[in-house]
């Protein structure tokens, strides 16, 4: 196998691992926060249902976290196995956040273990809430640190390159690079948003499938409300990201928008297909790209023709960008209408079709996450470190990457199917109605026993 093939298979394997990992990682970042919020609402309202909600989510979460942990270990090691030259260089500059990420992960792992095995130890619900705080913090901070590493790849700084040697290295400057604020904020908030909509989809699905328990209604309202807040936040930060791109990575924005000529009053293209440099069937929104890029309808936006041809990312990222934005906007509308409908007593939000729409929202937001990441990553092609190292220079020279690709593909298939089967079985065999009945029986038993002792 020649070096070119090694590069190709290394790219495919990295993409496969990350695409699989981010599904579980996104849930891993967002769900602990939802569990913590449910526990908190349960304590504040003194409502057993929310406490139970927190526990049932936590039980399913363990399965997803296991797959997230093992695939995270895989990508962590693959970085060195598939991109040894990149890691040697980046290790000099950006090892600090990578290292801090393991601390955050460690912290989360310890307290998740304690939380899961102390459900029956303390009667005071506040103690359980206290245990959830480090879990949620650890989960979010590991996303923060690892995204900092990715932001560095988009906007490397904190060192000087003199004759191919790295000098004057400043680890903190490398961490706080210009891409970092928008990237970190967007990743974290969309993880919260996606988790909220996945949990909402589950609640809506249970309601559709015959259960009419108030537990599911509470779950649906809570998650839709959270989803609305986080999706609005995601859109606002997405707008900041556009402004960041216009300033620091104009070729990514121009490729996503099929914007060829540098010009003012730039229009935004939605959908459409590309024919040479002709954009067909697109919905054009005048001035919108200038507004997105610079908050000024007449501002000049740099076009693709101003870049050397071998430094332009593939133009198909336009479709990925559109997918991400469309789903984001759709979810703001779905959750916004639901929230409004609850207050205005509109009946249609309880109809079957609307609930199906909410169910679809779960997988759709996951697709948006994938599309967003593909857009962000493919959009910085051909660079692995923008303006410093191209992807082929970074890849391994080993000749066995293709075999490893097939092995890992099989692994992810097994893990994906396994986790879905186990999760389904867990919740089908123990519906919430039965768990509530069991708990009530336990409480009655407890008081009767207590009475006997007296």
């Amino acid at each position, binding site marked *: 196998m020649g070096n070119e093939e090694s590069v190709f298979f290394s790219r495919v394997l990295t993409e496969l691992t990350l695409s699989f990992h981010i599904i579980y990682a996104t849930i891993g970042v967002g769900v602990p926060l939802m569990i913590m919020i449910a526990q908190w609402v349960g304590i504040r309202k003194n409502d057993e249902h929310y406490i139970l909600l927190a526990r049932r989510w936590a039980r399913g979460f363990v399965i997803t976290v296991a797959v997230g942990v093992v695939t995270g270990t895989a990508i962590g090691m693959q970085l060195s196995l598939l991109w040894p030259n990149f*890691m040697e260089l980046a*290790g000099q500059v950006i090892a600090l956040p990578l*290292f801090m990420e393991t601390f955050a992960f460690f912290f989360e*792992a310890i307290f998740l*273990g304690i939380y899961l095995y102390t459900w029956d130890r303390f009667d005071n619900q506040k103690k359980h809430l206290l245990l959830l705080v480090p879990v949620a913090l650890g989960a979010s901070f590991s996303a923060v640190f690892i995204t900092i590493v990715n932001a560095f790849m988009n906007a490397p700084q904190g060192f000087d390159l003199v004759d191919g040697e790295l000098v004057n290295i400043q680890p903190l400057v490398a961490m706080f690079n210009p891409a970092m604020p928008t990237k970190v904020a967007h990743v974290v908030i969309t993880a919260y948003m996606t988790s909220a909509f996945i949990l909402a989809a589950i609640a809506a699905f249970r309601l559709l499938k015959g259960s009419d328990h108030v537990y599911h209604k509470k779950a649906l309202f809570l998650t839709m409300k959270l989803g609305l807040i986080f999706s609005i936040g995601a859109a606002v930060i997405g707008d900041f990201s556009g402004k960041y791109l216009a300033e620091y990575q104009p070729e990514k924005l121009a490729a996503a928008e099929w914007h060829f000529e540098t010009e003012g009053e730039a229009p935004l293209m939605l959908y459409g297909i590309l024919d040479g440099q002709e954009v067909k069937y697109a919905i054009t929104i005048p001035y919108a790209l200038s507004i997105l890029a610079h908050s000024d309808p007449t501002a000049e936006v740099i076009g693709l023709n101003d870049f050397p041809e071998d430094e332009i990312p593939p133009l198909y990222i336009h479709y990925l960008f559109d997918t991400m934005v469309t789903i984001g906007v759709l979810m703001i509308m779905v959750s916004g209408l639901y929230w409004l409908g609850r207050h205005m007593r509109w009946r249609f939000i309880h109809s079957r079709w609307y609930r199906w729409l909410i169910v679809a929202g779960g997988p759709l937001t996951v697709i948006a996450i994938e599309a967003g990441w593909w857009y962000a990553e493919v959009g910085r092609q051909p660079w692995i470190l923008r303006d410093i190292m191209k992807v082929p220079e970074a890849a391994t020279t080993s000749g*066995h990457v293709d075999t490893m690709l097939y092995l890992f593909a099989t692994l992810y298939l097994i893990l994906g199917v396994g986790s879905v089967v186990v999760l389904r079985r867990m919740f089908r065999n123990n519906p919430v109605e039965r768990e509530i009945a069991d708990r009530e029986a336990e409480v009655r038993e407890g008081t009767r026993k207590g009475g006997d002792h007296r």
Partner: protein
Amino acid sequence: MTLEILGISVLWTFLFGYLIIASIDFGAGFFNAYSLLTGKERILTNVIQRYLSPVWEVTNVFLVFFFVGMIGFFPSTAFYYGTTLLVPVSFAIILLAIRGSYYAFETYGARGHKGYSFVYGAAGLILPASLSIVLTISEGGFIDMIDGNPVLDYKALFLSPLTWSIVVLSVAALLYISAVFLTWYANKAKDPDATELLRKYALIWSLPTIITAGGIIWELRAHNPEHYDRLLDFWWMFALSGLLFLGTVWLLWKRRNYGLAFWLLFGQFALAFYGYGISHYPYLLYPHLTLYDGFTNQAMATALVVAFILGLLLLVPSLYLLLRMFLFDKDYVKGRK
């Protein structure tokens, strides 16, 4: 102490931590599967599950910590080890992934599913073999530099007796460590049947452990004389380690003081592991890479040490809490809570 030495000491300590807790974990998985096969699961499963459940995720972090720290302090290892280890480490990752997730599937999802337990037990036994290849390669002689890029010589690796001795040692040692620890744990749980069975396993696995450990020192004489000479300089560490080994076996034989027996074992492996590590100095990969030419720049090293100290301030109390709540909580161990 230079930052290089500090860095490698910290990493070596984390690797040792991983070695001990992963051994307990992998061995427990194996004994659990084996007890299912021989119809003894009533005796062992409870004790093993109660220990494993709260700590399985933490075990994994020790490994992640080690390799992330390695890249941080010694970025050149990414180039040498990353390029050559693609196949063995990919196998290890796949086994770890299957093991970790199937543990969760079995414990939280489908309790009592025998297939999961077998996969889990078997994976735990092959894993140390694929990970210990790294130790073999670090001894030198298996990597050729072609066009400035390192290439692993698989044939030499597979035909070397050193490779196979290290594989056998890793498997025997893990079963031994695990059995000694679980004997203590079962005894604390006041479970005489499990204690007796695990004590038997511990005694069985003590012999191959010590024989292969001695054999490897002997093989290094032919494979890497320089390392062998340095090993001899630290002969007292290995002698002390051997004495501690005898102490553990004697206590197990006499059925007393299992706690002390485990700590003696801990000391035995610590002495041998650090003795091996110190005598490997100054090479990270013999003879291509030393501690000094692979070290990161001063600014990053300082930043990592600061992050490390702050991280430990957070971790040590949390780990202490975890141990106190599960390992050293009498009621939890006995299964009352």
